[in-house]
C-alpha cells in the first residue's frame, strides 16, 4: 500500500508516522483555520476588550442596557423563529409529496426547489416588495376576493419580512427533510398498521421520529440563515424594523463604531455557533455517529 511505502521512506528521526491523508486534508483545513476561524476568533476577542486593550464586558452591558437594542434583538429572534416555523410547516408535507412523486412531477418540484437558488437574494427580495405593494397583486387579489375592503399595508411589515425570507430559505428546509423521508421504508407504516396502530399513532410514533434528523438539519440551517439575514430585511422592511445584522452594517459602514459593531457581531456569532454545535449534537444523538 502507498501508505506503508511512504511511511517507510519517511526519515527515521520521525517518531510518529504521519498519515498521508493528513497531508491531503491540510491545505483545505489550514485555509479555513487561518482565513475563517482565526479572523472570527480575533473579532470575538475584540468584543471583550475596552479601548486600552483590557478585558471588559462594557460593550455588552452598554448594548443590552439600551431598550432599543433589546427590542431589536427580540425582533431578530422572533422573525427568525417565525420564518423557520413557516418553512417547516410548508416543507414537511412537501417533502412527503416529493418522495411519492415520480417522473416529470418530481423533476418539476425539484427544479422549483433548485432554480430559485440561482436568483440572487436581492432580486427575490425586490420581487416580493413589488408583489406585496399596496397596489401589488396580493392586495388586488385580497380586494377581489372580498377578504379586505381596501388594500392593506403589507410591505414594511414583519409579516412581509417573514413571507419574503421564508421564500428564500424554504429549499434549505425541504431538501434535508426529503433526503430522510425518501429513505423511509413504506412497509414500516404498513407493518405498524398490521399491528393495530391507528394513523395518528403511526405518524407520530413511527414516521416523525424517523424524519427528525432531516428536520433538525433543516431547522438549524434555516434558523442560522434567518437570524443573520441582511439583504432581505433591508429591502422589505427598511430601517423601520431593524435587525441585528442591520445594526452591524450601520455601526461599521455608517457610524464607523467598531466597538459597537464587534459587540453585535459577537452576539450573532455566538448564536450561530450555538446553533451549529447544538444541531450537530442533536443529530449525533438521533442518527448515531456519522463520518
Amino acid at each position: 500500500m502507498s501508505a506503508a511505502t511512504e511511511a517507510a521512506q519517511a526519515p527515521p528521526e520521525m517518531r510518529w508516522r504521519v498519515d498521508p491523508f493528513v497531508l491531503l486534508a491540510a491545505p483545505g483545513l489550514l485555509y479555513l483555520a487561518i482565513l475563517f476561524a482565526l479572523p472570527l476568533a480575533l473579532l470575538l476577542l475584540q468584543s471583550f476588550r475596552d479601548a486600552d486593550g483590557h478585558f471588559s464586558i462594557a460593550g455588552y452591558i452598554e448594548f443590552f442596557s439600551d431598550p432599543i437594542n433589546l427590542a431589536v434583538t427580540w425582533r431578530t429572534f422572533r422573525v427568525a423563529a417565525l420564518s423557520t416555523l413557516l418553512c417547516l410547516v410548508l416543507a414537511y408535507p412537501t417533502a412527503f409529496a416529493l418522495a411519492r412523486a415520480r417522473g416529470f412531477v418530481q423533476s418539476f418540484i425539484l427544479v422549483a426547489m433548485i432554480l430559485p437558488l440561482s436568483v440572487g437574494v436581492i432580486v427575490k427580495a425586490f420581487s416580493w416588495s413589488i408583489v406585496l405593494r399596496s397596489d401589488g397583486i396580493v392586495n388586488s387579489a385580497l380586494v377581489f376576493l372580498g377578504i379586505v375592503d381596501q388594500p392593506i399595508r403589507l410591505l414594511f411589515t414583519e409579516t412581509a419580512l417573514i413571507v419574503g425570507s421564508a421564500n428564500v430559505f424554504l429549499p434549505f428546509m425541504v431538501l434535508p427533510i426529503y433526503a430522510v423521508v425518501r429513505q423511509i421504508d413504506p412497509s414500516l407504516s404498513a407493518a405498524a398498521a398490521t399491528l393495530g396502530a391507528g394513523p395518528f399513532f403511526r405518524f407520530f410514533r413511527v414516521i416523525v421520529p424517523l424524519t427528525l434528523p432531516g428536520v433538525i438539519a433543516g431547522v438549524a440551517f434555516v434558523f442560522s440563515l434567518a437570524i443573520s439575514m441582511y439583504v432581505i430585511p433591508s429591502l422589505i422592511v427598511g430601517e423601520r424594523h431593524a435587525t441585528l445584522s442591520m445594526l452591524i452594517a450601520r455601526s461599521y459602514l455608517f457610524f464607523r463604531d467598531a466597538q459597537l459593531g464587534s459587540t453585535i457581531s459577537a452576539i450573532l456569532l455566538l448564536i450561530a455557533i450555538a446553533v451549529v454545535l447544538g444541531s450537530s449534537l442533536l443529530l449525533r444523538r438521533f442518527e448515531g455517529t456519522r463520518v
Partner: protein
Amino acid sequence: MTRTDRVAVVLCWLFAALVVVYLLTPLVVTVIVSFTSSTVYTLPPPDWSLKWYERLGRKSGLMDSLVLSLNLAFLSTVIALIIGTAAALGVQKGRFPGREAIATFVVSPLMMPGLVVGVALLQFFREMGLRDAYWSLLLAHIIITLPYVMRTLLASLQQFDFSLIDAARTLGMPYPTAILRVMVPNLAPAFLTAGLFAFLASMDNYPISIFLTDARNKTLPIRMLQYLEETPDPTIAAISSGLILMALIALMVSARTVGLNRMIQ
C-alpha cells in the same frame, strides 16, 4: 389505505403545489418585469418591450460587475474543488482524532452570519497588510465555496467503495490511473453538484463582499442593490432574467448527466 391516509396524501400534494407556486413567484415576477415597457414596476405591465435588455450594455459598470462576479465565482469554485476534494478525502480516509468535529467545522461557514465573516476578514486582511480588493474578495469567496464542496464530497466519499481502487490495482492498473479511471468518474456527479451550488453561492454573496469591495471592484449583487437604491428601473430584472436562463440551462444539463435526485443529496 384508510381514509385518514388518503386525506393526508391529498394535503401533502396541496402543500407541495402551494410551495411550488410560492417558490416560483419571485422568478416569474422578475421575468415579467424585465419585459415591461414602463419605467416603474407595475404588474401586469402596461405594454411589452425589450428596451431593458438593450440598455444592459449601456448601464455603467453593470457589465464590469458581472464579469468580476463570474470571475470570482469561477476561480473560487475551481480552487475550492481542488483543496476541498483533497480535504474531504483526507478527513474521510485519514486516521486522526477529531474527524467528526472537523467535518462539522468545515461546513460551519455555511451557517455563520455573513456580515460578521465579512467584518472579521476585513480587519484580518488590514492587519496582514492586504489592501487589494480583488485578492481580498477572491480569498473570501473561497470561504463561501469551500463548505459546499466539502459537504457534498464528504457525503459522496462516504458512499464510495474504496476497495474498487484496490480491485483496479489488482487487475494491473497503476495507482494514479486507478484513481483517475475509477474514483474520478465515480465522484463526477459530486463535483458537478458541488461546483454548481458553490458557484451560485459565490455569485449571490452580498454580506461578505460588501466589506471587501472598493470603487473599482464591485460585485454584481453590490452593484444591483446600489442601483435599486439609486435609480430603480427594470434593467435589474433584465440581467436577473438572463441569470435565471443561464441557471435553467445549467440545471437541465446537470439533470441530464447526473439526475436531479443525486444533485440534492
